[in-house]
C-alpha cells in the first residue's frame, strides 16, 4: 500500500468504494426482510469493505468509504437513512481504527467485526434517540446486539478468509 503510486491508490479506492456501495445495494434490495430479524437490522455486508480499507490504509481511507456510503444513502433513501448511516458508520469506523492500532494480535476480524457491529448499532440508536427525543427507545438495543454478534461474526469470517489473499495479491502487484 505504501509504495503505490497515486494513480494506483486512486484506482484501488475507486474499486473499494464501488464494492462498498454495491454491497449496500445488494443487502437493501436483493436480500428480503428476514422474518426473525429486528426491523432496521442489516447484515452489514459493506462493513467488510470498511474493515478491509481500514486495515489496508488506516483511518483516512475507511472514513472516506463511510462518508461516501452516507452520501449514497442520502441520494437513494433520504435524510433519515443518511443520518443513520453516518452516525453508525463514523462511530464504528473510529472504533475499528482504534482497535487496529491498539491491538494487532489479540483479535481476529471476527472479534473486530462484532465490536464494530455493536458500535454501529450504538451510534444508530443514539441518533434515533436524539431525533425522536425518547430515551425508552434504548430498549431496542438488546435485539440489535444479538444480531450484531451474528452479522459481525459473518463479516469477520469473510475477512479472515479474504485478507491474507488480498495482502498477498497487493504485495505482488
Amino acid at each position, binding site marked *: 500500500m505504501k509504495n503505490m503510486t497515486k494513480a494506483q491508490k486512486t484506482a484501488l479506492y475507486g474499486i473499494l468504494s464501488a464494492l462498498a456501495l454495491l454491497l449496500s445495494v445488494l443487502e437493501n434490495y436483493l436480500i428480503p426482510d428476514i422474518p426473525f430479524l429486528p426491523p432496521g437490522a442489516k447484515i452489514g455486508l459493506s462493513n467488510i469493505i470498511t474493515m478491509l480499507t481500514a486495515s489496508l490504509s488506516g483511518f483516512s481511507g475507511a472514513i472516506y468509504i463511510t462518508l461516501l456510503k452516507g452520501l449514497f444513502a442520502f441520494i437513494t433513501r433520504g435524510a*433519515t437513512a443518511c443520518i443513520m448511516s453516518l452516525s453508525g458508520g463514523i462511530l464504528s469506523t473510529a472504533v475499528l481504527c482504534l482497535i487496529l492500532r491498539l491491538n494487532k494480535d489479540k483479535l481476529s476480524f471476527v472479534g473486530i467485526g462484532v465490536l464494530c457491529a455493536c458500535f454501529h448499532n450504538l451510534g444508530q440508536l443514539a441518533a*434515533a434517540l436524539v431525533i425522536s427525543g425518547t430515551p425508552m427507545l434504548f430498549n431496542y438495543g438488546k435485539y440489535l446486539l444479538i444480531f450484531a454478534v451474528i452479522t459481525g461474526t459473518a463479516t469477520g469470517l469473510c475477512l479472515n478468509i479474504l485478507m491474507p489473499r488480498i495482502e498477498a495479491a497487493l504485495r505482488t502487484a
Partner: protein
Amino acid sequence: MKKGDYYVIVSVLALCVLLFIPSFLPSGEKTAEVYVDGERVKTVCLTSLKTEERFEAAGCEILFEKDGASFIKSDCPDQLCVKCKKLKMNGDSMACVPNRVVVTVRAEKENNYDIVAY
C-alpha cells in the same frame, strides 16, 4: 479465530442477557405510551381494553390491542415501524424515526399515572 474473539462474543451475549431481564420480570397492568417529538401524547391501558383501538399521530397509525401495540400505517419512506412486530413485553419500544413517533409498552406492578391525558 483467536481467543480474544470468543471473549468479545461471550461478553456481548452476556450484556444481551442482562438487558433482556426486565422483559421477563413479573408484570401487572400493561400500558402503551405514544410519544411524538419526545412528548407523551397518549397513554392506553392495554390490559383493560375491550376492543382494539386505533390512534393517529404525526403520519403514523398505531393499533392497540389487549396483548400489545403496533404500528399499522405510516407515511415514512422506509416503513420499518410497520414491519416491526407487536410490542408486548415490558420496555418494548419502536420508533418511526422519520416521523419522530415512538411507541413503548410498560408492564409494571402499579400504575403510577395520576392523570391520563389525550
